[in-house]
């Protein structure tokens, strides 16, 4: 009998967690849809542009140093780590391809996005979460303004357009860091370094890295704003929401990266013969 009860309570718990998951997924999807439609309508309203510019300053401009530093260190570390392997094979002049390709395709975009998830995502969730627990979001609503349009859309648009730009900064500093270690410090021939780089890194590689930025930006804004809007009451609630927002956007960034790599490979291999014909 007790066993039966145990099983049924286990089943009830499982059922409750399934219902909970479906409820949260539905709420998340509805929030994102509302954010997308609100962002589109805000883009058509010049009166909202100052709000977008404010967010661009907070989200984009103030993130430049952290993204640049991350990029530079990635490039420098890659150079130091890979040099010995390549020198062992006598092809150390190919170091440029390795560094620049890794930076523009993968490490630059992903690490910049992760840094942004921490810096921007954390700040967005904390700000909106505090507004939520102090009823400021309800206050916006009570005055007849849609809080998603007023609060989420400008942040969403700023993240969407500025994450790719920040990735370009990260890529640039990554290349510079790799170059500074490879050529002046490790003594690789300057012309060979850049020639090999130019032959190995295609426009396609750079654009894929930048395109990723749009997706990462949306993921960071979407998850962080959602968590801020739906955080639990109190300081602990805001703290938990910030942690969940960072972990959530980090995982989504990695998942999106994986999907985009698969898709871009498929697109590249189907377009490759076409390019040969041209």
């Amino acid at each position: 009998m007790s066993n039966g009860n145990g099983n049924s309570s286990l089943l009830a718990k499982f059922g409750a967690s399934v219902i909970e998951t479906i409820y949260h997924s539905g709420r998340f999807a509805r929030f994102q849809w509302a954010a997308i439609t609100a962002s589109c309508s805000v883009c058509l309203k010049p009166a909202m542009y100052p709000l977008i510019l404010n967010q661009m300053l907070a989200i984009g401009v103030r993130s430049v140093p952290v993204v640049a530093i991350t990029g530079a260190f990635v490039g420098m570390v890659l150079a130091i780590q890979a040099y010995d392997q390549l020198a062992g094979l006598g092809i150390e002049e190919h170091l440029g391809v390795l560094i620049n390709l890794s930076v523009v395709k993968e490490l630059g975009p992903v690490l910049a996005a992760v840094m942004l998830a921490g810096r921007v995502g954390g700040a967005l969730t904390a700000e909106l979460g505090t507004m939520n627990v102090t009823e400021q979001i309800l206050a916006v609503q009570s005055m007849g303004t849609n809080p998603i349009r007023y609060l989420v859309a400008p942040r969403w648009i700023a993240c969407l357009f500025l994450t790719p730009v920040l990735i370009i900064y990260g890529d640039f500093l990554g290349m510079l860091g790799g170059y500074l270690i490879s050529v002046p410090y490790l003594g690789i021939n300057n012309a060979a370094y850049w020639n090999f780089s130019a032959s190995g890194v295609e426009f396609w590689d750079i654009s894929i890295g930048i395109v990723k930025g749009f997706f990462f930006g949306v993921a960071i804004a979407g998850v962080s704003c959602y968590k801020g809007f739906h955080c639990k009451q109190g300081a602990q609630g805001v703290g938990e929401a910030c942690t969940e927002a960072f972990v959530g956007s980090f995982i989504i960034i990695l998942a999106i990266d994986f999907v985009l790599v698969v898709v871009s490979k498929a697109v590249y291999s189907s377009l490759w013969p076409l390019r040969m014909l041209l």
Partner: protein
Amino acid sequence: MENKTSKPEEIIVLKNINKSFGSNVVLDDISLSFEKGKTTVIIGPSGCGKTVLIKHIIVLLRPDSGRVYFHNIRIDNMQEKQLDAIRTRMGFLFQGGALFDSMNVYENIVFPVKQHVKIKNREKLHDLARTKLAMVGMESFANAFPAKLSGGQKKRVALARAIALSPEVILYDEPTTGLDPIRSDVINELILKLKRELGVTSIVVTHDMTSAYKIADRIIMLHNGKVAADGNADYIRNHSSPVVQQFINGQADEDDLRALRAPGSDIKISDIEQ
């Protein structure tokens, strides 16, 4: 317990409102109507659903069942977009003020105006903000940020923001809680002044009986999600229900007193250390 028959215009009508959070029933089949131009005070112990009730009036919360009418139009089932127009005709004073802390006092006041009006005459906008701030006696704080204001000042600025669009109805959520008696009276006078000068309908949630007696045309007491008493100040003062008398006189419950006398309530910290 039901309302008197409707001679004056009923601006807000609630019909059979039920609201639960999980298994906690907060509002249990509440039906009320509010007359235009009158001040109604809703009293009741903390957690009895007063705030939940007034949030239903502006549809910041939607009922599980029941209906909310504003000027005889059903609003509880409206889309958010339609509700925005209704909400501009109501002002809501939040318990903590809910001022936007990224904006200064002036920007807080003009926020609702900027959201709903195409501003052509900036001078007039400044005048409007100045007038509203003067009404709450805060005109010298236009450039201050909410973080620099005291609790009472925040509430007064929040009140100025709530009346910025000259609403027909103002909902006050505990306007005097946490304020000293003098500041509380300033807020009471403000509520009376707004009624006198702007003819607004006010619904005030409070558990401050001094304030309730001073401002109310009608007092409603909520208890366990139901209306326990409904009438003018004298009616409430002389109400026969022990629940009402206990609340308005601020007497502790027999159960609470028993808990204070219970064995173990005199444990000293030194006992724990041994």
